[in-house]
């Protein structure tokens, strides 16, 4: 019995030896990004402190038994950090979390940069909310979206973030021109411009001025169904079929209209198209060649 009594405490003492000799670290469970704080230490002597974060590593000699000041600049990235103190007898560690601070920045994505008018749900605006250190703000925050059209109309939407993201979809207006979109949260704001452009040609019509051997063709002002003129440079295709065969020319709109000229032999049928939209067809008579 005395031998057992002697053996157990002896073993326990040996087991406790490391604990008696080693230091301990205590940090707050969480801190706000960019905020300075202290890590409490126990023990005596010097040790090497390693502070390991998602984007930052600090290594410095410390005195055990004193509070360690940690600068805010060492904890700007949110996430889990490890503080490790190593001395001759071994290393001890603690972990703590850095949480994002208040919303201060926005990443704002708007698609597309050009959109046809009167297109439902064609515009997508997505805003991501960050703190001033580019950490995603997870707390629910309202993002304000402001829309300003060239026609002078304006409207607003407020969308709460989910996991740092707020998004919405709206249709384009009926008038072409720039649509300015501003997203804001707190003091932070970002603006983008969407060009609303005319959609497909509507009511495409050609008129002809016939000569004995040629015919000059010109479209009416090419507009979409909302009355928006198609931009200059848009290609209009003219096709003529007569005794000499088929002739085609792709010509761009200039000053709102497209024009072409064909030599005509006999009776000719002339049609016009813009993209996949067909216009009217006319017949003209020319001298047979």
């Amino acid at each position, binding site marked *: 019995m005395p*031998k057992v009594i002697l*053996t*157990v405490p*002896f*073993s*326990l*003492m*040996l*087991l406790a*030896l*490391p604990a008696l000799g080693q230091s301990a670290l205590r940090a707050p469970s*969480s801190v706000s990004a960019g905020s300075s704080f202290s890590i409490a230490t126990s023990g005596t002597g010097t040790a090497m402190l*390693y502070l*390991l*974060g*998602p*984007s*930052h*590593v*600090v*290594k410095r000699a410390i005195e055990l038994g004193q509070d360690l000041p940690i600068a805010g600049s060492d904890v700007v*990235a*949110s*996430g*889990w950090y*490890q503080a*490790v103190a*190593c001395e001759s007898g*071994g*290393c001890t*560690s603690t*972990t703590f*979390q850095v*949480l994002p601070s208040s919303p201060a920045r926005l990443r704002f*994505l708007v*698609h*597309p940069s050009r959109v046809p008018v009167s297109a439902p*749900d064609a515009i*997508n605006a*997505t805003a*991501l909310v960050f703190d001033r250190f*580019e*950490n*995603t703000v*997870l707390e629910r925050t309202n993002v304000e979206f402001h829309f300003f059209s060239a026609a002078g109309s304006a409207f607003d939407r407020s969308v709460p973030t*989910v*996991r*740092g*993201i707020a*998004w919405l*979809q709206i249709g384009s207006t009926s008038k072409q021109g720039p649509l300015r979109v501003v997203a804001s949260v707190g003091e932070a704001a970002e603006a983008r411009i969407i060009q609303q452009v005319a959609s497909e040609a509507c009511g495409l019509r050609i008129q002809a001025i016939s000569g004995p051997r040629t015919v000059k063709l010109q479209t009416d002002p090419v507009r979409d169904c909302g009355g928006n003129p198609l931009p200059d440079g848009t290609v209009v295709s003219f096709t003529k079929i007569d005794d000499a065969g088929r002739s085609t020319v792709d010509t761009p709109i200039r000053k709102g209209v497209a024009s072409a000229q064909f030599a005509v032999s006999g009776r000719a049928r002339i049609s016009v198209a813009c993209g996949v939209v067909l216009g009217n067809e006319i017949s003209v008579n020319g001298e047979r060649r």
Partner: protein
Amino acid sequence: MTTKLHLACCLGVLVPCLSLVSFYDVAASPVEAGSLPRVRLNAESIGPRRIEQKTGEMVARDYAQAWQDLADSLEANRTDLLNDHFAGGAKERLTQRISEQKKNGLRTRYVDHGHQVKAVFYSPDGGEMQLQDQAQIELQVFGGQKMIYTASTTSKYLVLMTPGADRWYVRSLETVPDDAF
């Protein structure tokens, strides 16, 4: 001394010694060359845009590759290994982390035991995808040959991925509190 006393003494010495040795000079198990971390992607609750089959496969593959690159770069202290699958803030943060740990004589080993990933946001234009990742990671930090820290944790990550020409990039990779999701 009796045999039992001898045994008790030996155990009494051996056990503390073992506990000390586990922080030092433990040979790391070699990582299987060419193997990617296991990533299970669940896209059932993704919105507002649905994810196409091929896109989902690509995202899972590129995310796994990103974690492999992350582990390789942190262990080898090479920032160039981040170029293929990281962009933006995630790349900047990891680059800074690697530069600073290298400067301080440290290296980090990630032993990746897999990721349970849930895709939670896919923008209507397909330009951004947000993932929630519950990852089983064994983290080991070495100062020279000496291991100064080790931990085996289940960590939660909030990830933002964006499409490139032929792959998806990790643009943001942030650990979040356990109650975040």
